[in-house]
């Protein structure tokens, strides 16, 4: 029984970081239907710069971390403004290819600037100190990630449901022309979307970095986050969080009871299965455009 509970706790813990990445991807997809493959590397750049100011310039945490989040917002807005918006005759496939290009450029820049040796982010909390719940161990960092993931989800959910900007974002996704006719500055909306998404991705990165940092570190969480978002339905925020926890739990239970070798791929197999049965994901509402 303890083993089972430990696996559940492990699944939830690892699901939280997938959830943050999933949320970040959903935000952009929700407004532009673009899958942003540079999501992980946008966070990567922010966290390596944070590492730089903490380690080499002696900035305190309370300055470095908020600055990282601000920088992330700026970076997201900048990339949208300077790169994506410049695409000629943009279509969705072209945009996705651009994000893949951005991913390579950002990773290349970080590898060049900081080298390939693994590092760890200084953090107020050790990633290896644990909290005991009965016989079950959870690390403090995992508890923090869990709280952050849920908080971000709730804030974003409320934001999209009730705030003017959030509703404008949704409108932009559903029909850009109509949205513009209603007086929404859709380009600016897209830019803000990228900024918010980058911020959420950066949060995920900052919570992963205390364990290990290397130029390749965000690729896997990004893929898992993407998988979670697909599972939950790419446009649903709670869906992507649910998907992320499902993946975390499936991985842990499968690894514990059936085969540890195939633990990382089983989640993807289940996604294929779900998509065969419900192509738009578990939670997405399908908008049918009438012609």
């Amino acid at each position, binding site marked *: 029984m303890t083993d089972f509970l430990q696996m559940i706790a*492990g699944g939830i813990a690892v699901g939280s970081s997938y959830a943050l990445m999933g949320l970040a991807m959903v935000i952009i997809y929700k407004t532009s239907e673009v899958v942003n493959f540079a999501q992980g590397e946008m966070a990567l750049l922010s966290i390596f710069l944070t590492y730089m100011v903490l380690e080499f310039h002696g900035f305190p945490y309370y300055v470095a971390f908020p600055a990282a989040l601000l920088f992330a917002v700026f970076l997201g807005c900048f990339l949208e403004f300077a790169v994506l918006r410049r695409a000629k005759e943009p279509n969705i496939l072209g945009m996705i290819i651009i994000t893949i290009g951005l991913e390579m450029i950002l990773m290349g820049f970080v590898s060049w600037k900081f080298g390939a040796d693994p590092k760890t982010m200084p953090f107020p909390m050790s990633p290896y100190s644990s909290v005991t719940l009965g016989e079950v161990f959870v690390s403090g960092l995992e508890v923090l990630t869990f709280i952050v993931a849920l908080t971000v989800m709730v804030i974003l959910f409320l934001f999209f449901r009730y705030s003017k900007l959030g509703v404008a974002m949704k409108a932009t996704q559903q029909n850009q022309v109509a949205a513009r006719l209603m007086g929404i500055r859709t380009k600016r909306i897209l830019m803000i979307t990228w900024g918010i998404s980058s911020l959420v991705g950066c949060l995920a990165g900052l919570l992963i970095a205390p*364990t290990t940092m290397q130029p390749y570190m965000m690729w896997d969480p990004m893929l898992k986050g993407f998988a979670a978002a697909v599972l939950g339905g790419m446009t649903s925020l709670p869906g992507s969080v649910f998907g992320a926890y499902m993946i975390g739990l499936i991985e842990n239970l499968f690894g514990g009871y059936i085969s540890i070798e195939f633990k990382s791929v089983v989640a993807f197999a289940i996604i294929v299965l779900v998509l065969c049965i419900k192509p738009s994901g578990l939670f997405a509402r399908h908008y049918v455009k009438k012609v």
Partner: protein
Amino acid sequence: MKKRGIWLLLAVLALVLGSAMGAVAEEGVTDTVIHIGQWGPQTGPAAPWGAVARGTGVYFQMINEQGGIHGRKIEYHMFDDAYNPAKTKAGVKELQEGVGMFGWASGVGTACGLSVKDYLMERKIPWVGPAAGSLHWISPPQKYLFAVYPLYYSEAKILCKYAIKELGKKRIAIAYQNDDYGKNGVAGAEAELNKHGLKLVAAVPVELSDTDMKPHVMQLRKADADVVLLWAGPIHAIRIVGTARAMKFQPQWMSTSTCSDFPLMMAISKGLWQGVIVGNFGDLPDSQSPLMLEYKKAFDKYAAKGERWGVFFYAGFGFVEPMVEGLKRCGRDLTRERFVKEMEGIQNFQGIFGKISYSAYEPSDVFCRQGQDELFLTQCVEGGKSKKLTDWMTPD
């Protein structure tokens, strides 16, 4: 008619002379230059090991600065394969068929090396010191392939022997990267334990894509292991140790030479690596041996800014020391066949690694192409320093 006859004669002459010239000048060797290639991951998940290829570059630069080898400078061609065997193969073919290498030095990664092994061997191109301790290099032995790195198999045997005999441990488990590297470790550990009438209490595979180590640690803890061998990359190894610490599971950790860069391991594990015992194939970073001091000087002079004098970096010197020795022994008359013959004559060669010896090619003798067979064990102590636990050891 007469004109055609002259052309025919010229063509025949050109063919004959051409092939005769070809026999004299070996591919990749000119009067002034020897072309040598190497691949190494400068990007991607294995990038920390890419220091090997950069180390070799500095070593060759040092040799060139000292006048080269019998009047010839080494022209070093290194490329980034990102630890991706498909890229390794493409890059090797491009350099071999485009520029023409005399031979290949080192090269990180078992899978990467395997992707080009047959290509190089079929073309009789020498390859010295693959930076991986795989059994594939020597089993079966290849005439043109000289291994330097002690076998992971032997390393696992030595570590298990130490755990049983010196530490009195009986419950030994292994967490291994699920590929050739990890499986060589499992095979070595099983062989040594069998000899003592023991069995591995757990063998837990780690996939390269795994980031969450809880399921792995749970299995190790369930098996109640008192020693755990970590046959994985540095990051996975640290994650396992860290997760185990969080789960209050603290066996004696042991690991391979690939995780022996203590300053690096201590820095990224935030001190958790302290107490881990590893195998070492060469001198320690702070060694004061004259050769290491000379190499350190070359490092200070030629290495790029921001480069670190770590184990992987100077391993790039060590893996190719025997190659340079072989080239020196050839004199001016450098052909691949002569090079192989001279390499076979190397006995008890001492560079910054353990003793290296080869013998005449014998298809049934796997050790005729395994240069180094000895290792010593160290333990990571405070500040990332090494405490030497044993002298050079060879597996029984």
